């Protein structure tokens, strides 16, 4: 959580852009990662991330703190934006036909080649999972969100999220095994 976040949120709710700026800076990378892992394409991830924060800023007046972190609200907007994205772009070019370099985010340039390849394999496998499984993997194993917060974002009980993350990892491992063979 950001220092003085409650004050920033309160000011942002009042329409102060100077308060929303630091919230954007803090949460934008995690929302970008969440979207990027799900959609795979850098341009799409950037567009959707932009839309998420634009929607958040447009609707910040209706935000009400109900004991959940501000990030939960942003993740929920991001999930909806990704769903809208897929709904609008059903006839996409298949992932296999794309140039692998197209997927590489600029910030992954500092990884060594073998790590990059491993990451790309895993990312492609994640992209093949059900949307709920993708979400739980990103939230729990990439962003390390607490179970409670992940449950709130996914609108499920904590028990359901535990079960879902177990199944998601199993499914991901199975897909990675398939890739090897």
């Amino acid at each position: 959580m950001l220092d003085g976040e409650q004050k920033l949120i309160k000011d942002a709710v009042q329409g102060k852009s100077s308060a929303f700026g630091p919230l954007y800076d803090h949460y934008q990378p995690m929302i970008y990662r969440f979207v990027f892992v799900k959609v795979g394409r850098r341009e799409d991830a950037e567009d959707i991330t932009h839309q998420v924060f634009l929607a958040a800023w447009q609707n910040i007046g209706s935000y009400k703190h109900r004991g959940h972190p501000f990030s939960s609200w942003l993740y929920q907007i991001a999930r909806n934006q990704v769903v809208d994205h897929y709904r609008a772009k059903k006839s996409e070019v298949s992932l296999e036909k794309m140039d692998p370099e197209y997927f590489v985010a600029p910030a992954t340039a500092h990884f060594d080649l073998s790590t990059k390849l491993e990451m790309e394999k895993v990312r492609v496998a994640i992209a093949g999972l059900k949307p709920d499984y993708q979400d739980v993997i990103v939230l729990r194993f990439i962003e390390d969100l607490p179970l409670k917060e992940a449950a709130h974002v996914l609108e499920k009980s904590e028990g359901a999220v535990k079960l879902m993350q177990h199944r998601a990892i199993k499914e991901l491992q199975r897909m990675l095994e398939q890739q090897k063979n």
Partner: protein
Amino acid sequence: MNLFQILKQFKNIEPDPAFKETSRRAILAYRPVAPTTHLWSAQRTLWRIIETGAAVALTGFFVLLITGAFSGSRFVPVQYSAVDPQSLHAEAQAIDIQIQLANVTYAESAVESTVQTAGGKLLGNPKKASSTALSAARGTTEATSTITIDQALQGLSQ
């Protein structure tokens, strides 16, 4: 590297700084919708209550106006102008009279038929026949016309 270690590596992915800056500026240039305040909400709620109340009152007024039952007194029972209670009362009374008159007619015809039957059966003994017929007729008349026409009409007129 195992799967969980690879997943942790994803956390190092960062968006393009140029995109981040452009997007930030574009978003913050947008003015959000003015936030709601408690005072404004209270005024809005009050205004909605007034609107709803006025709508209900007007609807009620027009319903009363249409049915013609608008009255200053709350204790006067609702009366519909399209229906005249006096004519209704007279009509109801006329129906009752017709029923009573039909009963009287039936009683008279019953007396006649009884006399004829009794007379027919006792043709062989004229004295007995006449006395039997008379007593039968008397009994029937007494039995059937316990209320005379005059009594019935008098009762109805009251």
